[in-house]
């Protein structure tokens, strides 16, 4: 994943927004500014590596409102909050909702860039996990119903004989199906298949 990050800056204060954009630009980061929560929602970001810098307090829906909206919309960009007045309640709410950090204005460059690095790292991680899950899901989705029945029983630790009996098919047929599943899912052993199943379970929870 060599995609360059894109940082979204949402702040109603034009002066501050401009300054932050300038700073990010000078630091070699690509960034786009939005004047309000609505502005951001009306121009949905491309599915690209990046993060969001959000002002907590804005006219209309606040940064916290946007954070919630993004989650509802399945936009998984990590959020770094900037606030001019960090009251405990909104800070707590932001962190609980998964913000990377809540930074008090005026924020110095190192603090901001460090938070952005962490946000981007988290985005990269999430993105990798999402890619992996998607790939797994695609593979899994390519299984035939019979193959899925065999898969379920293999990862449940059952031997071919038991599976054949349960499914009312021949033992040979079971072995053929199992080989097919392992090929499709790209694993070489039953143990690997077990780990894959665990991973898949984790991803489907997320």
């Amino acid at each position, binding site marked *: 994943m060599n995609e360059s990050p894109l940082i979204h800056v949402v702040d109603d204060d034009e002066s501050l927004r401009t*300054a932050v954009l300038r700073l990010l630009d*000078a630091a070699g980061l690509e960034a786009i500014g939005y004047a309000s929560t609505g502005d951001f929602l009306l121009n949905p970001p491309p599915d690209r590596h990046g993060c969001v810098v959000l002002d907590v*307090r804005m*006219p209309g829906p606040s940064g916290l409102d946007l954070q919630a909206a993004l989650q509802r919309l399945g936009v998984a960009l990590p959020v770094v909050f900037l606030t*001019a007045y960090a009251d405990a309640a909104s800070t707590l709410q932001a962190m609980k909702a998964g913000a990377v950090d809540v930074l008090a204005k*005026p*924020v110095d*460059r190192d603090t901001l860039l460090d938070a952005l690095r962490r946000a981007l790292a988290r985005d990269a991680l999430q993105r990798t996990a999402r890619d992996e899950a998607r790939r797994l899901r695609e593979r899994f989705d390519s299984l035939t119903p019979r193959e899925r029945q065999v898969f379920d029983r293999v990862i449940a630790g059952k031997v071919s004989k038991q599976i054949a009996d349960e499914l009312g098919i021949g033992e040979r047929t079971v072995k053929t199906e199992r080989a097919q599943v392992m090929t499709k899912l790209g694993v070489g052993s039953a143990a690997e298949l077990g780990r894959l199943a665990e991973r898949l379970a984790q991803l489907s929870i997320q």
Partner: protein
Amino acid sequence: MVHGNSRLLPADIEASTAIQQTITTSAGLPVALFDEFLDQPRFGGQVYEETFLAYLREKYADRKPEVIVAAGEDALRVLLTYRSRVFSGVPIVHLAVSSAFLRSHAPVPPDVVGVPGEIDFSATVEQALRWHPKARILVVVTGVSRWDREWEGRAREEGARFQESVTIEALSGLSTAKVLQRLSELGDDAVVFSPGYFEDGDHRVFAPRESIAAMAAASRAPIYGPFNTHLGLGIVGGYSWRFADAGIQAAMIVNDLLAGTPPSALRLPEEMPTTLNLDWRQMRRWGIDEKALPPGSVVHFRVPTFLDEHGGTVAIVVAIFLLQAGLIAGLVLERFRRRSAEQIAQKQANELAHASRLALAGELTGAIAHEINQPLGAILSNAEAGELVLASGSDHREKLQAILADIRRDDQRASDVIRRLRGLLSRHEVERLPFGVDKALGDLRSTLAAEARRRGVTLEVHPTSADATIVGDRVQMQQVLINLVMNAMDAVAGLPEDRRRVVVATIVTPDLITITVRDQGRGIAPEHMSRVFDSFFTTKPTGMGLGLSIAHTLVRSHGGRIWAESDPPEGAVFHLELPVASEKGSTSPEPA
């Protein structure tokens, strides 16, 4: 009572009156007093006197007097001369008779009694010379009648004593015109002595007081005389006894005789006491110091000073004045105290208003921090961006210029916020200065914009149609407005967005400006309506209940009114009515 002189002579009138008033009753019966006048010295001579006595004998044939009073030496002389023929055996009481006369008629019968009266020429002259130390001439004025001649002789006799210090100039037997001429030529080196005269050198007849009055009018030198009856005619005065006192003394003897006391048993003074009688006006005229008077002197005709004349009234008036002054002083003091009390109360009110502003600012902390940190954040980011741009080495002149311009602008923004805040937070002396309402409303909007944003409240502030000027303390008015708007924002908290609106508007008339703060909140409950401006009344869980109470006080001190209207659930309107300064900007500051 037989008078030597005429009935109109003041001395005789004075004596007669005193006798009439002093003679009491005889064994419970009223005493009849009859006056007879010899009219000496104008009429005289043996035939006249004998005829006069014959007349008395006939007149009083059936009314024999019990006591005869002889007033004056002439009367006594005639009565003694003819006593064997008229009123023989009737006791005689004399008055105004000198010891010298009595000595010359010695032996005086024992039933002829009285207190001799000496007229002290020398004492008077001595006193006069003491008062007029420059005097080198003593002028003695007398006439040509027998009586006048007696006085002339006496003055020459006694005046000899003063020859060492003064020259005695006797104006005797001259015409009145010449006398007056001479007197008018005198200077301050002269002193005049005169008993008055009955007849001048031209044989013109006078009452002595007439001659005295004429002399006093003409004389350039002070005149002294032996008779207290001449006081008031223009003489300074002299040693004398009062004819009234002589009359009283005689009457007391008459009383004793009528009561049956034998003449020999009477205890009488040696002589009539003399006093120095003086005319206050003449003393002033001749520069005689009143403080230099011999003890026992009697000053007549003193023009009463205002105090002498109206002493009682003056005392009352002064007392009333003092009372009033005291009352006024008391009231002034009271007023002063009340003023200081008012000043203290005013000071406390100011302190409270200030404390209330601090509390307001405390509520605004979040908004204020936001307003300051926002530009500070921009400044920091711009500065750091600038550093990075510079570090990149390439020429980014334009970019750096833009950055610096933004830094400057944000710096201004931050300092504006601080300036507004400082105004609100400062503990300042209350001002009474004209200020524009629109400017105040602009400040209100700037101060509360961030807070409104934080609370998600739409704050609309409409300027006046015509910028009105009011006189007062703009910080305090700002405080009142902020308070009202904050309350309004509290009232709409938690309501749907379309109701989270606060509108500040104005109505201007020539005399008044009314600022309204309207919200669409829950309104004020009717039972709370009458108490919203009370101290410590609040419906907010954390409120102190002082904001509106203080606002009320501040508006009142600006000569304005503040009141609330509410029709739940339609929200509330607060009206703030203030007098408009007469002419925009021209109102001079009034003292607070």
